[in-house]
């Protein structure tokens, strides 16, 4: 009995994504190699990171071909992490300022 539930796709799309992952990784390495600093560094690193993560999740992990009921169940809960990140950014800024006041070298 053949399985209707498998994820079978032509090899070409995997090879293309694979090549892109190498290109994007090289890109993020070169950002460091050429000492790109400040906002350009951040923009490039985040873009390369998100592109890589997106390709891996969409193609290698087959989310692109799954039913929405599954992809929503997987992709929506982690968006809560953005709230967590925001909270901890505020908290750590506060800690930093407090440390500056109490332990700082006269700042």
């Amino acid at each position, binding site marked *: 009995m053949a399985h209707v539930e498998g994820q*079978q796709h032509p090899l070409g799309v995997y090879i293309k994504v694979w090549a892109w992952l190498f290109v994007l990784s090289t890109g993020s390495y070169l950002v460091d190699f050429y000492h790109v600093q400040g906002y350009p560094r951040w923009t490039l690193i985040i873009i390369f990171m998100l592109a890589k993560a997106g390709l891996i999740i969409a193609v290698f*992990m087959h989310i692109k071909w799954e039913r929405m009921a599954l992809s929503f169940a997987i992709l929506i809960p982690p968006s809560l992490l953005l709230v967590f990140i925001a909270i901890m950014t505020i908290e750590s800024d506060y800690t930093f300022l407090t440390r500056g006041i109490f332990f700082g070298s006269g700042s």
Partner: protein
Amino acid sequence: MAPSESDASVAQPGDLAPGLAGVAADWGSDQRTFKNVPWGKAMMWIFLLSDTFIFSSFLIGYMTVRLSTTVPWPNASEVFALSFGGDPIPLILIAIMTFVLITSSGTMVLAVNYGYRKDKAKTAIYLVITALLGALFVGMQAFEWTKLIEEGVRPWSNPMGAAQFGSVFFMVTGFHGTHVSIGVLFLILVARKVWRGDYDTEKRGYFTSRKGNYEIVETMGLYWHFVDLVWVFIFAFFYLW
């Protein structure tokens, strides 16, 4: 969408609703939510979702200590530089590790693909190659740990700057390395079963007593790609920041 029939909730493989209506229909249906997904794969996804929160907590903890410390953070580009006789090349070991892991993701995809074609030999070979690349990755990580420990990096202090650097480094890369190591064992187990023909004969599993089939290769693949995915974030936030 469909004209309402009394048995509309009984899903047939052929008549699943597309798009958002499909989300509502799938979640509102009885029997199972994740249509067309084997139970093992759905469970792996649930596990990976929980693992996402674990690694995210580590990375957010890292962000918090790094933003709040008043001591300068060590420069990862210099700490992880490696010299091959000449000038030290920044971050070179980490770059090689990244490429090794991406390569192993590629061979894993090939294993999944040949698994669904029921090509026993190729599936097993690609699984073994993936396991070897994973072992190579862990080996390089062990080298990196040794190097840093020799340079005096400890979970509570280090000579380069903020003390939290050591704790974050050992915690995050250690947890990731553990995941890779478990993945290597998992890969070897699945490769052995593929090679033995367990999935062709639907041999029952030792622990589960369930019939085995090639879907486990895809489930295994999900875990492996997830490990690669976590490394993408560690690479960006810990090594490139």
